[in-house]
């Protein structure tokens, strides 16, 4: 399969100053992320909240400027585009956000919201626009009458369908889904994930799925990258990661997933302490202060993300110094 998206040492730092003369601190939200995803793939980025996965999505979508690093979309340098080129590229890359209540303009009818991408890219207007919106609504299972209504008249699941319809309007190649399910009820989650899966099959879509819900990732993703404090610590196929996690952090994450079958229940690994502040990144391996298996080189030597048999791991246990 050809490559769709690749990033190299992507970083996003936020400067913040405490008060007028206070010390300047740098929040290293994303701190050197390299990965590559293929066409037609569901690539999931998982990690605790605050690990930088949403910032990574925003940098790739060019909603915020990267501090360092490079990214290519279908071979095109994402950060070397002029305005017109960027606008043209945006057609191919769409987004679905977590909170369906915040991602629709409360003062816009659904017709205008779902039709907006078509208007912006001058694809349709007037009666044709209306027809296109109707067919998009139909694709996500909403009646035509929805077009005349306002967002507050819909439930969370319906709104997320509307957002998906808007993201589909320009027939993109990639949809970046930033926690698309976590604001929804469990019963609605299943419907939305099935809808996303159907759309993927019908339209040859790829998803960059940002999530902390490992259940969803396990069933939906082809490949998984685990992020911790702004870097990828482990990456591989969903099967490998879920069946045989190599990085101690991945192990701990997976052990926290509730397992209904008591026979299969794993031993729960409870990590000590909290995720360190991204303003003060620990030396050596970022995970060593909380790692149950940390040993001699961990607090001094930064482990590289080393590829071995189709998966990458950044851990001294797996790749001895």
């Amino acid at each position: 399969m050809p490559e769709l998206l690749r990033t190299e040492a992507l970083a996003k730092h936020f400067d913040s100053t405490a008060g007028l003369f206070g010390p300047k601190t740098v929040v290293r939200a994303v701190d050197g992320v390299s990965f590559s995803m293929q066409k037609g793939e569901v690539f999931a980025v998982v990690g605790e909240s605050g690990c930088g996965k949403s910032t990574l999505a925003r940098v790739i979508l060019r909603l915020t400027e990267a501090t360092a690093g490079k990214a290519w979309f279908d071979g095109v340098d994402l950060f070397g585009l002029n305005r017109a080129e960027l606008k043209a590229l945006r057609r191919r890359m769409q987004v679905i956000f977590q909170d369906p209540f915040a991602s629709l303009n409360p003062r816009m009818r659904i017709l205008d919201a779902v039709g907006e991408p078509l208007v912006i890219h001058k694809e349709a207007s007037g009666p044709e626009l209306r027809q296109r919106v109707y067919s998009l609504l139909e694709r996500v299972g909403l009646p035509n009458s929805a077009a005349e209504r306002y967002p507050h008249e819909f439930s969370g699941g319906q709104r997320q369908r509307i957002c998906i319809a808007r993201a589909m309007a320009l027939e993109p190649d990639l949809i970046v889904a930033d926690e698309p399910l976590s604001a929804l009820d469990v019963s609605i989650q299943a419907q939305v994930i099935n809808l996303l899966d159907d759309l993927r099959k019908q339209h040859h879509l790829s998803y960059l799925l940002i999530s902390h819900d490992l259940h969803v990732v396990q069933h939906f993703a082809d490949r998984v990258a685990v992020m911790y404090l702004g870097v990828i610590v482990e990456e591989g196929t969903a099967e490998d990661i879920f069946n045989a996690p190599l990085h101690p952090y991945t192990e701990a994450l997976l052990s926290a997933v509730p397992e209904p079958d008591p026979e299969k229940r794993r031993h729960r690994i409870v990590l000590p302490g909290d995720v360190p502040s991204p303003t003060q990144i620990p030396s050596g391996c970022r995970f060593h202060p909380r790692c149950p298996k940390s040993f001699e080189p961990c607090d001094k030597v930064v482990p590289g993300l080393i590829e071995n048999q189709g998966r990458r791991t950044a851990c001294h246990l797996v790749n001895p110094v």
Partner: protein
Amino acid sequence: MPKLFEQSVFWQRFSHNRLALSGAAIILALILVALLAPFLAPYDPAVIDRAHILEGPNLKHWFGTDDLGRDLLSRILYGTQISLLVGCLAVGISTLIGILLGAVAGYYGGWIDRLVMWGVNTMLAIPTFFLILAVIAFLDPSIWNIMAVIGFTSWMGLTRLVRAEFLSLKEREFVLAARSLGARDRRIIFRHVLVNSLAPVIVSAILGVAAAVLVESSLSFLGIGVQPPTPSWGNILTAGKANIEIAWWLSVFPGLAILVTVLGYNLLGDGIRDASDPRLWSGR
């Protein structure tokens, strides 16, 4: 048409607020009086009648006459036109400036934001009324100049308000979604952010009209606002001050007119704010 408020809830709450309704009634009445002044006024407000100087309220002159024998009721009715015109146009100017500067500062941030906020703080540091006095001293004291000066010296509060709305709204996900669709800044500013910040802007503008009416009256009272013989509540009060010991009606009636007008705008503005702010809906 974009919806400004959650309409059903808004009207329900607004129509249950007696104070807000009376404010709306006052403003509506003022607009009618201003439009119909030529038909309502019993006399020509400029005609001098030396035989009836400083008469108290009576059947022929309900509000009495002034020191030149002019009918006070007619002068106050015509004064409504001035106060409405000055209030609305001055606030129109300041609202336009406030929205433009606030939107640009809040949306783009960076040095534009710093420049605008520097301007706002500088203007706020200067006592506005004395600034107006100083500027008017150099200009012709015509009603148009007064409107412009009031407008150009009262945009700071609205700029801050609009900037704050933009700062919080521009990070909302529907705005990010529009950006990732490839929408241009102009479209995002007007179609996504501004329409969602209109309710507080309208409230602030209505309250601003009350302030502008007061400033105009003060300037006219000091003799550097609307010039006689054009009747304005402020310059009628000037005549009232000179005769306050022998003709109370010259001070009381224009004073009441100003009071009722300012009260009306404030009640209306407060009512709209209460009805449109979901944080105040907890009561019911």
